[in-house]
């Protein structure tokens, strides 16, 4: 059996005296789409941010392609290059055009010449349906368009893992769809994805596995249909009765 794409063992994270993650174990295979759900404040964002070391873990180990990202001497920048992240608030660079937002990282790290990066930016924008917006400033775009640019920006690094932290939570309802469609397409193309979301429809239709997190622990994990229709844990049941 091939080794897991992402392997998390005994992951804990404290902020001062608050224990936010209390021992997370999970293995995610290449090409798998995992949706993480759970009440607000349960540690979903923190878990995701540990996966590309935006947060320093307190204890435990995270292996990506068998390589530790939690060890002291891990080359964090090199690992981040193939782990893309999409944020709830988009975090586009407001002083750059859409084109430069997408070109910036590959050119800065000399992975591409400006010409190559620009061609790639145009290709990615077409892919997310925003081909005509190359010269726009982020502030001129709707929320849904900004989030699609943010996805294109992450894809410009040609990652093989994508992390999404509530990518549609800051959007007006009518814009949720256009972002989810882009994500769905990515999933079908075989991207390994970890998605924190409240979109139960997306979780049910696209995810290979649903993970329910509460109070810094994984309470339940499995086939989305299975978990949603027959939740084993009381807290999972309570959660679904609210969101479904």
């Amino acid at each position, binding site marked *: 059996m091939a080794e897991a794409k992402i392997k998390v063992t005994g992951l804990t994270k404290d902020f001062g005296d608050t224990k936010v993650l209390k021992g997370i174990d999970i293995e995610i295979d290449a090409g798998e789409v995992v949706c993480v759900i759970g009440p607000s404040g349960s540690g979903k964002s923190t878990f995701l941010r540990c996966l590309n070391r935006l947060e320093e873990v307190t204890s435990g180990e995270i292996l990506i392609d068998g390589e530790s990202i939690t060890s002291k001497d891990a080359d964090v920048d090199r690992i981040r290059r193939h782990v*893309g992240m999409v944020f709830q608030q988009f*975090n586009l660079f407001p002083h750059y055009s859409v084109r430069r937002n997408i070109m910036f990282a590959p050119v800065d790290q000399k992975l591409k010449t400006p010409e190559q990066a620009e061609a790639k930016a145009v290709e990615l924008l077409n892919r997310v349906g925003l081909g005509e917006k190359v010269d726009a400033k982020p502030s001129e775009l709707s929320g849904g368009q900004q989030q699609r640019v943010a996805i294109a920006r992450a894809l410009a690094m040609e990652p093989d893992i994508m992390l999404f932290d509530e990518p549609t939570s800051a959007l007006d309802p009518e814009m949720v769809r256009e972002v989810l469609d882009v994500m769905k397409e990515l999933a079908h193309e075989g991207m390994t994805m970890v998605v924190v979301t409240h979109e139960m429809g997306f979780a049910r239709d696209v995810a290979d596995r649903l993970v329910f997190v509460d109070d810094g622990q994984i309470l339940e994990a499995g086939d989305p249909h299975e978990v949603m229709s027959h939740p084993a844990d009381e807290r999972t049941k309570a959660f679904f009765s609210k969101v479904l």
Partner: protein
Amino acid sequence: MNLSSLLDSFEQLSPMLAAGLATTLQVTIISLVVAMFLGVLVCLMHISKVRVLRGIAKFFIWIIRGTPMLVQAFYIYFALPQLIQLLSGSQFRIDVFVASLITLSLNAGAYISEIFRGSIESVDKGQMEASRSLGVSYSSSMRHIILPQAVRICLPSLVNQCIITLKDSTILYAIGLAEVMYQAKIYVGRTMESFATYTWVAVCFLLITSVLMLVSRTIEKRMRA
């Protein structure tokens, strides 16, 4: 005394004013340039993860903010040379223009570093995280993502600091820098024309600071647009 005599006196005053203002502007502009670099350096030290650097930056800002500039000028022009003399055993004097430059640069540098720090901290945390999550290094993220946004935010305060430093430079008359107040004092001693002299000195400052205020307001307006 009537208005026409006030205007007449300008003619006699103007060589003195020109000489004084030349020194004032020279010391102010050079100090502000030095202070910009010092400000960036101190600010980067202040927000760095290295404790010693943070400590040095905080200590420096504490000293400058906690003492009057007049005391700083006297300290640099009189006190430090004596200390150096005592330690080295040989004569040591510092040029008054150099002492003035150092005083004004350190002073403005401390305040500018605080302006920079405030602006950097007001840039959304998500900007650094987005950049780092793309594999971009800390220094590159700082240079290309954070600082350009911080500069935009800090421009009005920076122009304001230029006004303050220009005005503060008059304090250096106390250590004998031949800036505009120093020249004016000598001129009044010779001619007894206090009213005309200090009126014209004030007008000169108002003219320069008004231009700067206009610049600041234009920048603010353009930023809001």
